[in-house]
C-alpha cells in the first residue's frame, strides 16, 4: 500500500513476475519465516497451533508488546534505546488502576461503572506516560546523558514508583468497560468484524489507486496494472482470511448463555457466535496506521529518520534534534500507556510484576523486525511482525511442551540469529 509508494524501485519495465510486483524482499523474508514457524509448530502440536482459538490468543497476547514496539522503532532509529518501557508500563498501569478503583470514585464521587471512570483513567495514564517519556527524552536530548543510562535508571525507578503508587498491592478488579480493551472480554462480533474487514480492503484498494494516480499525474513510471491487482488481491485475501479466522473462534455456549441471560433473553437452541476482532487488535491497527503515517508522511517522521541516518546533517539542515529526542521519547511514553491499558485490562488487575522484561521483548521485536541499532533504518510493520514472531515462538514452544528455561534459550538464540541474517541481507543488497 503506502509503503510501496516509498520503497518501490519504480523500474519502468518488468524483467519477470516478481520484479514487476516490486515487493519488499525483506518483508517477504519475515513473512516467510513467520509462516514456516507457524507450520512447524502446527505439525508438532498435531494441528493445535493454527486453530482459530490459538490464533485469537496469539493476537491478543501480542498487542501490548507490539504497540510499544512501534514506538521503539522511532527510538532506535534515532540511535537511542529505551530500557524503561516495561517499568514505565507498570507505573502507568498502576496510575490507571488506582485512578479507576480509588481516586476517581472517592475523590470525584464517580460511582463504580460510571463511563467517565475508564475514560478519565486512560487519559490520566496517557498524560503520566507522556510526561515521564518527555522527561527522559529531555535528559537524553538536552542534558546529553546517554539514553542507555537514563532509561536503565528509569527501569529501576519506574518499576518501584509503581510499587509506591499501589502500596505493593494488586489493584482490581478493574472497571468492566476498561477490561474490554484487554482482549477476550471485548470483541466486535461476527457482523461488525466482516464490515471492518470489507472497509479495510476498500481502504487498501483506495490507497493503492490514489498512489498510482498521483504517480502517473507526475509522469513517474508505475507498476503494470496486473501487478498492482495481484498485490491488492493478496492484501484483500489476508485481511479477510484474518477476519474469518477470528470469527471462526466460537464463544463457548455457557458464556453465550450468560450473555443472553444478562440481556434478559433466552438463547435459541443450537446458536453459535464467533468472537470476531478484539478491540485491543483494533487499537493496535489504529496505532500501526497512525505510526506509519507519522513515519512516512510527516515532517516529524522525516526528521526522525534523517537524524538517525546522519545527526550532523540533520542539525545543519536546521532540524532541532534535541527537541526531536524529547518528542520521540514522549511518544514512546504515550504508547507505553496504551500498552499498559491493554495489559492491565487483559489481566483484569494491575499487578506489581506487570510488564516485567517487556523492555527486552519490545527491543527484540523491533530488532527482529529489521530496525538497525546503528540508526536510520526501521519500519512499523516490521516491528509488529517481529512482536508476532516472538510471541508465536514463545507460545508455540509452550504448547509443544518445551521446558521454560529452554524456551528462553531458544528465544535468545533466535534474536541473535535474526540480526545476523539481517546483516547478511544488508551486505548482499547494499541496503
Amino acid at each position, binding site marked *: 500500500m503506502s509503503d510501496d509508494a516509498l520503497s518501490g524501485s519504480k523500474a519502468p519495465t518488468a524483467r519477470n513476475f516478481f520484479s514487476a510486483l516490486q515487493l519488499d524482499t525483506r518483508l517477504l523474508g519475515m513473512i516467510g519465516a513467520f509462516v514456516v514457524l507457524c507450520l512447524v509448530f502446527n505439525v508438532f502440536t498435531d494441528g493445535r497451533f493454527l486453530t482459530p482459538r490459538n490464533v485469537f490468543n496469539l493476537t491478543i497476547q501480542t498487542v501490548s508488546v507490539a504497540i510499544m514496539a512501534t514506538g521503539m522503532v522511532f527510538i532506535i532509529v534515532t540511535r537511542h534505546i529505551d530500557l524503561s518501557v516495561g517499568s514505565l508500563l507498570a507505573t502507568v498501569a498502576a496510575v490507571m488502576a488506582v485512578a479507576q478503583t480509588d481516586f476517581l470514585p472517592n475523590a470525584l464521587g464517580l460511582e463504580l461503572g460510571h463511563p467517565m471512570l475508564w475514560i478519565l483513567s486512560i487519559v490520566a495514564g496517557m498524560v503520566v506516560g507522556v510526561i515521564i517519556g518527555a522527561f527522559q527524552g529531555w535528559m537524553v536530548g538536552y542534558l546529553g546523558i546517554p539514553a542507555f543510562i537514563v532509561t536503565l535508571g528509569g527501569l529501576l525507578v519506574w518499576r518501584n514508583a509503581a510499587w509506591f503508587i499501589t502500596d505493593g498491592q494488586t489493584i482490581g478488579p478493574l472497571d468492566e468497560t476498561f477490561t474490554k480493551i484487554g482482549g477476550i472480554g471485548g470483541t466486535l462480533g461476527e457482523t461488525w468484524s466482516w464490515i471492518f474487514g470489507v472497509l479495510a480492503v476498500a481502504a487498501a484498494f483506495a490507497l493503492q489507486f490514489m498512489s498510482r494516480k498521483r504517480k502517473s499525474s*507526475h509522469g513517474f513510471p508505475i507498476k503494470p496494472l496486473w501487478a498492482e491487482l495481484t498485490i491488492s488481491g493478496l492484501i484483500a485475501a489476508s485481511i479477510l482470511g484474518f477476519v474469518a479466522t477470528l470469527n471462526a473462534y466460537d464463544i463457548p455456549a455457557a458464556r453465550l448463555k450468560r450473555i443472553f441471560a444478562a440481556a434478559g433473553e433466552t438463547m435459541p437452541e443450537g446458536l453459535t457466535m464467533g468472537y470476531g476482532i478484539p478491540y485491543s487488535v483494533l487499537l493496535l491497527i489504529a496505532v500501526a496506521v497512525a505510526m506509519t503515517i507519522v513515519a512516512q508522511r510527516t515532517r516529524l517522521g522525516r526528521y526522525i529518520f534523517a537524524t538517525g541516518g546522519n545527526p550532523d*546533517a540533520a542539525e545543519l539542515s536546521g532540524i532541532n534534534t534535541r527537541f526531536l529526542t524529547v518528542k520521540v521519547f514522549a511518544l514512546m511514553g504515550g504508547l507505553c500507556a496504551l500498552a499498559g491499558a491493554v495489559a492491565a485490562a487483559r489481566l483484569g488487575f494491575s499487578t506489581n510484576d506487570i510488564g516485567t522484561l517487556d523492555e527486552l521483548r519490545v527491543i527484540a521485536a523491533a530488532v527482529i523486525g529489521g530496525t538497525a541499532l546503528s540508526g536510520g533504518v526501521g519500519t512499523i510493520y516490521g516491528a509488529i511482525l517481529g512482536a508476532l514472531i516472538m510471541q508465536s515462538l514463545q507460545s508455540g514452544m509452550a504448547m509443544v511442551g518445551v521446558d521454560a528455561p529452554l524456551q528462553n534459550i531458544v528465544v535468545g538464540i533466535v534474536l541473535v540469529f535474526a540480526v545476523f541474517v539481517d546483516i547478511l541481507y544488508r551486505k548482499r543488497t547494499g541496503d
Partner: protein
Amino acid sequence: MTTPLVEMKDICISFGGVHAVDHVSVDLYPGEVVGLLGHNGAGKSTLIKILSGAYKADSGEILIDGKPVTINSPRDARAENIETIYQTLALADNLDAASNLFLGRELTSAMGFVDDDAMEAETRKIMGKLNPNFKKFNAPVKALSGGQRQSVAIARAVYFNARILIMDEPTAALGVHETQMVAELIQELKKQGLGIFLISHDIHDVFQLCDRVAVMKNGQLVGSAKTTDVTDDDVLGMIILGKCPEGATPGPGALNDDTVLG
C-alpha cells in the same frame, strides 16, 4: 564601489583556549568568487561555519547588503539565502535524493503531509539540469557514487534561490569530468549574480575559478588579493610562510618583514 553582499568583520571564535578564528575580516561582492585558502586547521572551515550558522562567533559582526544580521543557527542562515555545500556533504545516507534535497524544507500537501511525489518531481527537474545522468531517484543516497552525492548536495544549495553560496572543497571527491561540471556551474551561478565562497586546496582550481583569494594561517588572515595581481608562488608563500606579497592587502596574520630580516 557597491556594497558588499557579505561582510564578516573582526570575527573571533575559540575552542577550549585555541583561537580557531582570530579577528578575521573578509568580504564578498555579488557575482564574485572568493577563494579561501590555508593549511588544514588554518580556520577556513570554522570561519565558514560561522557564516552558515553551524557555529556561533564569540565576537565580530556579519553584515549582509550592509545590514548587520544575527546568525545563530543553520535556519537563520537559510533565511538570509545563505546555502552551504559542506565538505562532508551533510547528507542523510538512508534517505533518497529528494528527501535530502528538501530536508528541513519539505514540500507538504494541503493536509500538511509530506508530499514525496511533488518533491521527487522537483528533484527530477533540477537534476535534469545539473546532472542529466542522474537516474537513481528512489535509492538511498548511500547507494550513489561520489559525484552523484555531490550533485545532490549542490542541487540542495542552488534549488532554494541562494544569494550567497559556500562551497567547502566541492571537487575534492570528484573525477575530472565532474570537476569540470562544477566549474561550469560556478561560472553560471556567477553570471546570475551569486556571491560564492570557495574553500579549496587546489591552487590551480582557485586561479581558474576565483576572482579573489583570502589566505588564512593559524586562525588569522594573512591577506587577500585579486587573482590577477598575484602568482601561484605568491599565494603558496602566503599559505606556507604567511608572507604577504606585493599586490596583496595584508591582514593581521601577515608576517612582518622586519621579523623576517631579524
